[in-house]
């Protein structure tokens, strides 16, 4: 048991314990003073301390052996009656205090924290700390759990924690009810644990995320830190002290939207690679080039306008606050009404972005605009996952859900660290090449989002291949790790995207490419393909089969073969 819990319990039990000691002392003392009688009914000296203590002990605990060692005198019986009632009161008081202590919220919190800290200490496998387990955190936790990565979560809202307990996870999700911005809570969650791989600050409060990022950076600089922000100022602040990845969902979505207008095939490819694996591939909607109307000029609206203007898209902004609109073509008013939409030229526009922070208003904007212009391309901002039903019913061309975007980014960073690198590289590709690769991946996974994963050819991640390349100085082509370990003539449904060797990138490496120890590879494919590939990478017998086509033999069988040959 945790020592602090023990001392807290002792402290609370002081009064009942003292009452008990006093009752025992008074009872014992009384018995040693009152004269008794012997077997013949003659007066006898009182009980000694030893006998008195013995009698009080069994009477007070309601065992009651009777009157020992001799029958009592009347005076002794009177005193014992008093003692019995005193001891009953004493014990009841103690038990009630103990029960009250166990019921006490503070005490339970201490117990829970102690249990949480112990379980975190005992974690032997790599884990990530997720600060803020709201909609975003839960999406990330679920996906990580499916990939077999342990998660420790810190969440402030107690109701939320009760909901989390009902969620199904493969491995237990360790949740602490606390404010993640407090460094000691981060320490409790295992910030200094040797198996801790990283911290994800994904609360919806920028300042809390900032606090988490700074604390993690100072206390354990070896960790990967991924933080969510909404404001550009905080983003710059975080980057300044070396947060590894800062995910600004407004900026990210605005960038994707602008890119999608400018180069739709590139966007389609990014969408495929960063999607939540296993979900159905959405239908393709390419945003058209032309006039755009942006409703709402908050942080999201500003990010969209900045990115669209950079891509040379002409647009009009609608917002009720005239002060913030300087410098952009604008109409003052509410996008939910038809009149401002008409003034912004909705009948000539090709698309509209409903980007307010109220889901109902956004839907209303979209519906009003669609009434006026049937052919509009609608981009909707969804603020709460809870409103999913409404957005499904409306079925906009593009829906921006902050929690989805952040979860996708975070997962891509954790599960496949090479992916951001690859995405940067393909930005420079011509449209045709991106389109071809996109088609190839779609064909590979059959209407499901592909899984994207990284492989390192080192002793820890792929022991069999590393041993073969390093110690046995063997040579193998890339296609060998892409073959089915059950049927070596068939290739697994996966595609090598990137080979990173000694700091140099090789995009889309060919099958005949020779592997070297220390190589890092990025693959896209199905989950089953990844499992099968892991078998080849880890298991020497499977690797032998893939290399030679012969099944591995035990030494008995080999000896028999040799005997029969000779």
């Amino acid at each position: 048991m945790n020592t602090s819990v023990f001392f807290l319990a002792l402290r609370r039990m002081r009064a009942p314990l003292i009452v008990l000691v006093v009752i025992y002392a008074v009872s014992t003392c009384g018995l040693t003073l009152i004269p008794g009688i012997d077997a013949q009914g003659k007066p006898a000296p009182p009980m000694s301390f030893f006998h008195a203590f013995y009698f009080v002990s069994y009477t007070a605990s309601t065992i009651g052996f009777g009157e020992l060692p001799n029958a009592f005198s009347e005076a002794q019986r009177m005193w014992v009656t008093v003692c019995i009632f005193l001891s009953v009161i004493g014990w009841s008081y103690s038990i009630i205090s103990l029960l009250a202590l166990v019921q006490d919220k503070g005490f339970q919190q201490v117990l829970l924290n102690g249990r949480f800290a112990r379980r975190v200490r005992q974690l032997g496998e790599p884990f990530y700390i997720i600060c803020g387990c709201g909609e975003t955190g839960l999406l990330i936790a679920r996906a990580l759990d499916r990939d077999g990565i342990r998660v420790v979560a810190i969440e402030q809202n107690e109701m939320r924690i009760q909901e989390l307990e009902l969620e199904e996870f493969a491995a237990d999700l360790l949740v602490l009810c606390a404010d993640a911005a407090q460094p000691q809570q981060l320490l409790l969650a295992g910030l200094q644990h040797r198996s801790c791989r990283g911290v994800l600050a994904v609360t919806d409060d920028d300042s809390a995320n900032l606090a988490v990022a700074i604390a993690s950076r100072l206390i354990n600089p070896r960790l990967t830190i991924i933080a969510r922000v909404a404001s550009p100022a905080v983003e710059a602040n975080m980057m300044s002290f070396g947060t590894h990845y800062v995910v600004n969902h407004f900026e990210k979505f605005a960038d994707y939207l602008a890119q999608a207008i400018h180069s739709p095939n590139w966007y389609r490819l990014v969408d495929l690679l960063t999607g939540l694996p296993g979900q159905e591939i959405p239908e393709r909607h390419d945003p058209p080039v032309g006039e755009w109307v942006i409703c709402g000029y908050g942080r999201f609206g500003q990010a969209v306008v900045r990115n669209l203007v950079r891509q040379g898209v002409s647009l009009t902004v609608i917002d009720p606050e005239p002060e913030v609109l300087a410098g952009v073509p604008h109409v003052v008013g509410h996008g939910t009404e038809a009149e401002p939409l008409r003034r912004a030229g909705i009948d000539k526009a090709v698309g509209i972005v409903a980007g307010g922070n109220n889901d109902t208003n956004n839907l209303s904007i979209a519906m009003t605009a669609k009434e006026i212009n049937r052919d509009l391309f609608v981009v909707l901002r969804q603020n709460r996952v809870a409103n999913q039903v409404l957005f499904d019913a409306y079925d906009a061309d593009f829906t921006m859900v902050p929690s989805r975007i952040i979860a996708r980014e975070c997962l891509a960073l954790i599960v496949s660290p090479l992916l951001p690198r690859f995405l940067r590289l393909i930005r420079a590709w011509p449209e045709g090449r991106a389109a071809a690769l996109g088609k190839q991946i779609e064909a590979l996974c059959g209407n499901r989002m592909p899984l994207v994963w990284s492989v390192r050819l080192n002793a820890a991640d792929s022991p069999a291949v590393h041993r073969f390349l390093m110690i046995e100085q063997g040579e193998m082509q890339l296609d060998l790790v892409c073959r089915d370990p059950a049927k070596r003539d068939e290739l697994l449904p996966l595609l090598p995207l990137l080979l990173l060797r000694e700091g140099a990138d090789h995009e889309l490496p060919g099958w005949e490419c020779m592997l070297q120890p220390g190589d890092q590879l990025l693959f896209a494919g199905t989950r089953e393909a990844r499992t099968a590939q892991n078998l080849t990478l880890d298991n020497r017998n499977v690797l032998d089969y893939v290399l030679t086509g012969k099944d591995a033999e035990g030494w008995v069988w080999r000896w028999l073969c040799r005997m029969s040959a000779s």
Partner: protein
Amino acid sequence: MNLEKVVFGFFIVLAATLNFGFFIGEIDNPMHHHIYELFAAIVVNLIATILKFGDRTQIGAVHLSTSLVADLQLVAAACVWAIAVHVSGDGMSAEVTTSVVSLSGGALFANVVSVILLIVETVMLRR
């Protein structure tokens, strides 16, 4: 003035004085060492121990440990008395009295340490 501090100080000093009262006198003369005094010393020491529960400071920890030592010694003395009088039937012979009193002498030392700690604490606060 804080009532909690008064009670705390009272019990610690009372534990030491009762212990001293039992201890003083010729070491092997049962007439000088009344068994009721030992009883009172044990009870007051137990109360003093319970009062010291739950203080997480360094000085609080030492306080608690001195009290636990005193309890242990006094309970050992009581056990020796009980065995001599009730189990072996020797009664309060000179040897038994000596052993009971010397055990309580050990407890007295622990209690004196406790009182010194109390004084030190007070002086530190007065600084």
